[in-house]
C-alpha cells in the first residue's frame, strides 16, 4: 500500500468536506449546490454511508427526446438485434396520458434501485443483490437465468439476454442467458462520475435528471428533494426507491 497516495486521498477528502460545509452555509436556498466529489480509492470497498439516488423532473422531460436512452445504449454497448420484444433496454422513455383529462407527459423509466428490492428477495442464488451503497445489481457470475427477478420487478426494469453477445464493453460485462438491468453506471459512480444518462441530459441542458448521494444532506439531490415535492412510482409498495420523480 502506498502511504503517500493514501494520505493524498484522505487529504483531498478532508478539504473537499470542509469546502462543502462552508459553501453550504453560505448559499441561499434554491440556488443549486455544485456537488463536491469525494473520490473513492480503487481498492476501498463501498459503504452504506452513501446511498445513491436519482431525481427525475418529468416537467423538464421533452416528448421525443431520447438522449438518456441513447447515452445508456452507447455507454453499455446495448446494441439491439431489431427484435424489440427480446432486445435489452435498461432505460426507456414512457409517455403517460391521463385517461380523464388528456394531460400528456413523458419520463424515463429505469431500475428504481429500491431499498427493499423484490428482485433481490426472490433470486434463488442471491445473484440479484443490493450493494452497500444502494445500487441494485445482478452478479452474473452466479445468475442461472431463471428470470424470477423479472417476474418480481414491479417496474419491469430487467431484461434477459436472448442471444450470444460479442465485443461487450469492458466495464459492462453482459452475456447470453443472464439477466441485467440499469446499474446506475456503477463503474462510473465508483470512479466519481455520474451515470451516462444524467450526464447526457445535463450536457444537452435539459437538466431533467439529478444524481447524487441521498445520505448527504448537502448534495444537490438532497437539496432538491427537500425543496420540491417528489414521488416514487408505486409508492404504495413501500420499497423506498432510490429514483424519485417530480411532476407525477
Amino acid at each position, binding site marked *: 500500500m502506498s502511504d503517500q497516495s493514501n494520505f493524498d486521498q484522505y487529504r483531498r477528502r478532508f478539504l473537499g468536506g470542509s469546502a462543502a460545509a462552508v459553501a453550504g452555509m453560505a448559499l441561499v436556498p434554491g440556488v443549486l449546490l455544485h456537488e463536491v466529489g469525494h473520490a473513492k480509492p*480503487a*481498492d476501498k470497498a463501498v459503504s452504506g454511508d452513501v446511498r445513491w439516488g436519482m431525481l427525475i423532473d418529468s416537467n423538464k422531460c421533452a416528448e421525443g427526446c431520447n438522449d438518456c436512452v441513447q447515452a445508456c445504449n452507447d455507454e453499455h454497448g446495448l446494441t439491439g438485434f431489431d427484435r424489440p420484444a427480446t432486445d435489452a433496454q435498461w432505460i426507456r422513455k414512457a409517455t403517460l396520458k391521463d385517461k380523464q383529462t388528456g394531460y400528456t407527459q413523458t419520463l424515463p423509466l429505469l431500475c428504481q434501485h429500491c431499498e427493499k428490492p423484490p428482485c433481490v428477495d426472490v433470486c434463488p442464488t442471491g445473484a440479484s443483490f443490493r450493494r452497500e451503497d444502494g445500487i441494485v445489481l445482478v452478479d*452474473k457470475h452466479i445468475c442461472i437465468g431463471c428470470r424470477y427477478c423479472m417476474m418480481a420487478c414491479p417496474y419491469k426494469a430487467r431484461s434477459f439476454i436472448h442471444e450470444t*453477445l460479442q465485443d461487450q464493453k469492458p466495464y459492462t460485462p453482459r452475456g447470453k442467458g443472464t439477466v441485467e438491468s440499469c446499474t446506475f453506471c456503477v463503474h*462510473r459512480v465508483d*470512479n466519481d462520475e455520474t451515470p451516462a444518462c444524467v450526464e447526457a441530459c445535463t450536457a444537452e441542458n435539459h437538466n431533467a435528471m439529478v444524481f447524487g448521494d441521498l445520505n448527504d444532506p448537502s448534495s444537490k439531490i438532497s437539496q432538491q428533494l427537500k425543496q420540491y415535492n417528489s414521488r416514487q412510482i408505486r409508492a404504495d409498495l413501500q420499497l423506498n426507491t432510490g429514483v424519485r420523480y417530480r411532476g407525477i
Partner: protein
Amino acid sequence: MIKHSLILLVTGLLLGVVTPGHAGDSLLPEIPTAQARYSDTQGCVEPTAEMRRNHMKYILHQRDETMHRGVRSKQHSLVECINCHVSDAPDAPRVSSEQHFCNSCHSYAAVSIDCFQCHADRPEKTAGTHAMPAVGQSRGENVPVLAIEETIHE
C-alpha cells in the same frame, strides 16, 4: 526387456502426439506474449509460476471483490489482464481461436472457460469511446511498466 519396451512405448506415444495440424508442431501450446512486462523482475502481476497454477483463484476472488464490494483495484482486474495480454488491433484473435492468450493454454488443457460469455475478450478500441479507467490510469494504450507499479496494490 520390459523396461526397454516400456520406454519404446512411451516414446512412441509422445511422438504420436505430434501429428500434422497440431499447433506449431510442438508438444506444448504456443502462448502469445503480452503487450508489456509488469516489472523488470516479473512478467505478470504475480510471479509467472504462481499465475500458471493459481490465476483462477485470483480471478474468482477479485470478481466478488469488484462485484459486491466495489473494489476496482487494477492488480487483479480482468479488464487489465485483457488489456495487457490481448492486442487491441482490429484483427486481434478472439477467445475462440487458439491464438488468444487465454484459449491457447485452455484449449490445450481442455478446461473450458466461462468468462467470455459476458466479458469482452479483447480490449476496447479507444477512439471515440468514453475512457473508463480506474483511478489514475488511461485505458487502451499499451501499459508501460512504470504505470502499473503506480497502481494501488492490495
